């Protein structure tokens, strides 16, 4: 059964006000097209979960979509702070933002616990950090084997997870190469999953290399064909990270007015990602990846 639909339809059907949403991708494959559509559809009171809020959540926060954020590192990678995030936390602008703060390892374990239908997972991490003092979500468990105490993190089960990938078939069997991040764990932890891809392929392409599938169609609600859907982040084998845009974001977002102008021009002012690519013009082509193909392997018997 084909689950292919437009991003507009996928967000309209599967993302609701007040949802706990996840848009994952660790520097790689960040689902910006989905983020822009959520802003366009003016979702509100969202809880945003993600290891690195990155520009995608800075934009959602600036647009007033967020009530709360669950995260582990809130910066513009390699550039500086996330200005919208800081305004929300330090000054409550455009609205106050509750924060629920972990570490990368903790977030990964929270998704894995959720994906495994467990209430928690233990770790040897966290003795000595003040994070466990300010966040009551960290709790301890005593090992029944060694009499050690270990810190635990609780399962995180999002309402919706959105991921971007190189390719999927129409049923949502999704393949990724390059950095994996925590997309698989977040997707399995989630009640609904929206996958956007550079390419919707025939199932026989997926079936030619089943070890590359990270998300099975069985857990996918919608498949969106969205080329360049991860810009300004990158897609291995597709297009490079737009570092210039990450640098420019610092100036764009430094004041609320500048950020608002950006959203008006690049999000509210455009109907969809196709219009966004068109508006990018030649820059789009500069980012396209060189070819460096892997050695194919034999699945025969």
């Amino acid at each position, binding site marked *: 059964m084909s689950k292919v639909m437009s991003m507009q339809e996928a967000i309209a059907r599967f993302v609701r006000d007040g949802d706990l949403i996840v848009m994952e991708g660790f*520097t790689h494959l960040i689902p910006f097209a989905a983020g822009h559509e959520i802003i366009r559809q003016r979702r509100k009171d969202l809880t945003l979960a993600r290891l690195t809020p990155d520009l995608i959540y800075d934009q959602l926060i600036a647009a007033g979509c967020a009530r709360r954020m669950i995260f582990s590192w809130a910066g513009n990678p390699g550039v500086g702070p996330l200005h919208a995030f800081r305004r929300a936390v330090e000054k409550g602008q455009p609205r106050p933002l509750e924060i629920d703060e972990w570490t*990368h390892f903790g977030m990964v374990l929270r998704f894995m616990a959720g994906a495994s239908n467990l209430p928690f997972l233990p770790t*040897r991490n966290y003795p000595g*950090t003040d994070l466990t003092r300010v966040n009551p979500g960290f709790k301890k468990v005593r090992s029944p084997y060694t009499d050690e105490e270990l810190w635990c993190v609780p399962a995180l089960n999002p309402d919706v997870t959105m991921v971007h990938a190189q390719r999927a078939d129409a049923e949502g069997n999704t393949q990724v190469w*390059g950095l994996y991040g925590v997309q698989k764990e977040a997707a399995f932890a989630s009640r609904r999953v929206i996958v956007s891809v550079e390419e919707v392929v025939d199932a026989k392409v997926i079936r030619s290399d089943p070890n590359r599938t990270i998300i099975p169609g069985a857990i996918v609600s919608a498949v969106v064909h969205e080329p360049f859907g991860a810009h300004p982040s990158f897609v291995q084998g597709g297009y490079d990270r737009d570092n210039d845009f990450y640098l420019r974001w610092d100036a764009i977002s430094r004041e609320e007015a500048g950020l608002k102008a950006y959203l008006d021009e690049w999000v509210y002012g455009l109907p969809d990602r196709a219009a966004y690519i068109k508006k990018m013009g030649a820059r789009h082509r500069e980012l396209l990846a060189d070819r460096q193909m892997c050695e194919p392997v034999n699945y025969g018997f």
Partner: protein
Amino acid sequence: MADYTTSELMVSRAAKELKNGDVVFVGIGVPSLAVNLAYRMHAPGLCMIYESGAVGCVPTRLPISIGDPCLVTGSLAVVPMLDVFNLYLQRGLIDVGFLGGAQVDRFGNINSTVIGDYRKPKVRLPGSGGACEIAALAKRVVITIANSKRTLPEKVDFITSPGYLGGGRERERLGLRGGPELVITDMGVYRFDPETREMVLVSLHPGITVGTIKENIGWDVKVAPDLIETPPPSPEEIRIIRDELDPQGIFLRSKAG
């Protein structure tokens, strides 16, 4: 003044801390340059791991973020982040982790979370990321930070990443192995006293005096009896840094000393 910048000196000094065969958790900027310098100079068997999941990277350009696609192309392995933290870091496979932060204190505790009160911060910083677990679970930690009263207070506002906590055996008592080994600043190098676990100045960068150090640190720092001058980078090291690692001067040229 010699023909190298302070940042290049820091990179060179950090590189010397790495042994051939070390498995190193790499960050962006000085750490990345130091690891790549060590790899080219004396540690061809060094294995670079980024928290993004790339292992055994051979970047053909300077990576701008820890998830740069150039870290993936040609690497030995790309693994899920769950494996990075469980199977590499928590398992004890990481020999050296590099960390920075907004503040480092007398016992090597690092703050990258907030300045001021957590609930009403004066400055909200990015937070831990993977720093807390690197500090807790890597065998050795090398810290790089600017040398000032603001960045090196006696006690950090918030312990994001545990060093030796209150000093002495407190870290071991909590069940943590390893700990910070070295702090490299723009003025000198510090190690930790094996008993008190207090930062001790062991090396001064050329042109810096103990007096300058004492004016730029938040407590009455101890000085090692065998204090030395930090060895300057060799011409070959400078050549590698400038010609091969950061030819556009993205991380280093702007801080010329």
